[in-house]
């Protein structure tokens, strides 16, 4: 009886999903629009979207480490270019010590930061601001999303604390995006006229929907004056700031890699010993 009822239920589900299958196949077969090999309708995104290029950062890979001089340069790019619109609200000024800055330098960076911390007037209790101190998080650039939209042509500049982990492609994506602005190809505009960049947006084939609200942030070589003598080409600045944003998103990367190395060596030895113990205990038992 159980098997009869079960068989009936199984056939019902199979018939219903079979009917749905016929519908799906018929839908694909009768729809004349051009399709990708998986059957999705072709669009500017499926045909002209570009995959991120490799930024070749030192933090990549199992033994990846940060290049502290590069992180400092990247922080400088962030501070002088990106910080005008983008916050890194989950990072604290004191974290900059990890980039090789001294305590005094961190104090100075915090104290000189353009945007002050929200505070309270000690006498009147009214909202006020004060200078940043190392224990503060980096302050928000805009008080809220409404203010951000009002100042940025109706787009919200995302917080960059986790940007290299919150996007497919990570640092390579950030690097490719900020160096990837390019005019739209005639072929794309011919096939997908609706993708034409609207007023106030910028064409960028690395961005999900091909047109981005952010103007090209790095426009010319030497836009940032590096202290360490590195030539500040657009490509170099883009790599440096991508490296910095890997650090903001993953500040424990180096200790994680080190702890991992020790753990794996330990576990290899322990597993080897355990295997020896297993073979030894079972030596007289056929199994």
């Amino acid at each position: 009886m159980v098997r009869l009822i079960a068989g009936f239920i199984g056939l019902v589900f199979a018939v219903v999903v079979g009917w749905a299958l016929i519908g799906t196949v018929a839908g694909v077969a009768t729809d004349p629009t051009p399709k990708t090999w998986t059957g999705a309708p072709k669009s500017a995104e499926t045909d002209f979207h570009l995959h991120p290029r490799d930024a070749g950062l030192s933090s990549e890979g199992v033994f990846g480490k940060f290049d502290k001089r590069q992180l400092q340069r990247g922080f400088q790019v962030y501070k002088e270019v990106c910080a005008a619109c983008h916050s890194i609200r989950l990072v604290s000024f004191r974290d900059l010590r990890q980039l090789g800055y001294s305590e005094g330098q961190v104090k100075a960076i915090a104290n000189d930061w353009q945007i002050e911390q929200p505070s309270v007037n000690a006498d009147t209790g009214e909202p006020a601001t004060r200078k940043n101190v190392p224990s503060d998080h980096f302050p928000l650039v805009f008080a809220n999303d409404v203010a951000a939209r009002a100042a940025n042509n109706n787009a919200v500049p995302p917080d960059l604390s986790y940007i290299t982990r919150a996007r497919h492609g990570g640092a390579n994506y950030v690097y490719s995006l900020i160096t990837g602005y390019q005019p739209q190809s005639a072929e794309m505009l011919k096939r997908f006229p609706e993708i034409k960049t609207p007023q106030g947006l910028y064409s960028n084939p690395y961005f999900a929907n091909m047109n981005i609200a952010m103007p090209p942030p790095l426009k010319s070589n030497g836009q940032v004056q590096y202290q360490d003598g590195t030539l500040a080409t657009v490509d170099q600045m883009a790599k440096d700031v991508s490296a910095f944003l890997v650090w903001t998103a993953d500040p424990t990367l180096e200790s994680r890699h080190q702890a991992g190395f020790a753990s794996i060596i330990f576990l290899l030895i322990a597993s080897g010993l355990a295997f020896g113990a297993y073979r030894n205990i079972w030596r007289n038992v056929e199994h």
Partner: protein
Amino acid sequence: MSFPWANHYEPKQPLMRWIDEKLPLPRLVYNAVGAGYPVPRNLNYWWNFGVLAGAALACQIITGIVLAMHYHSAAASAFDSINGTIMRDVNSGWFLRYAHANGASMFFIVVYTHIFRGLYYGSYKAPREMVWLLGVVIFLLMMATAFMGYVLPWGQMSFWGAQVITGFFSAIPVVGDWIRVWLLGGYAPDDAALNRFFSLHYLLPFVILGVVILHIWALHIPGSNNPTGVDVKGKQDTVPFHPYYTAKDGFGLGIFFLVFAALVFYFPDALGHPDNYIPANPLSTPAHIVPEWYFWPFYAILRSFTADVILPAKLWGVLAMFGSILLLFFLPWLDSSPVRSNNYRPKARIAFWVLVADVLLLGYCGGSAADPLWIIIAQVCTGYYFLHFLVILPLISRSERPRPLPNSITEAVLSGKGGTSPAETALAH
């Protein structure tokens, strides 16, 4: 319970004798996972996964308790408490968080292997039906716990996952929407939902632990199955659990933790989704909402039902998704073949491997975008999934002529076929 030749607990030290008289807890452990539990001598490495699942549960509970000390279950601060405080300020907080998030994946990897081992070797059959039923209960509890845990970081996938999954309940006719609002404590996931998910996410692992104890208790009545599926006939067929299988499980644990460590320390995001590093935003729907990988096969089944046939397509999808798990409760009675191990069942073995491929394909489709190709493959695989358990397996179990079984475990061992694994059987035929 247990076999008459099992070792007996005889405490030698006066203190242990004293404890044994008042509270025979050491005796219980001795009989459960010590020298007092006789186990077939021919278990292969696939039998390690039960202990590994226990280890994974223990890791989840320990890391979870410490994480809960730093976590805020409020919509306004949940994201920052994890991605700000725990990941950046708590000592080794990043380790706890990665170990917990990847620990869930490790738990599912070993439990899926454990389930498929049971399917291949017929461990669900008499006299072990209750072990199997309790196992399915554990699996359901794990899925609920994992889902609610994934909501807690309150990223984009957390929020939209909660939105989609609780949306299943609105497929129920008439009272569906009311049930959904009641479950969420509001019209959309927010503080009320987050708080109750946290509360239940803390509770359910201990319920799982309780059912695990019942699962092991039920196992110890008939004793462990083995690769031949043949019953234990005498003392020569078994070895004591300790030291034989504690040693073998020790090696298994080493490999388990090696894989676990590689994930935690080198690929902590490999099984996650980038969108969950974006704080939840009820006004912005992600382009592709996908659950965690361990739900992909079920998500594929849900999405396969695209046509209204008497009932709305969404209701069919939800019924099929829950049905695909609930049917496992009936498996011991659907497969009526008296032979347990697929090593001796030529037709059932082929059906088993088709099922493995079927579930892997379903998983791939469930994790992909809803393009027609993946929907079509998922629809074919969904059809096979239901036919496999509800039609094909019951029919095979009647028509199939099994190969001759060995007379005993020891006979199989001495002829070199005691612990034959699925791969070896596949090569031999």
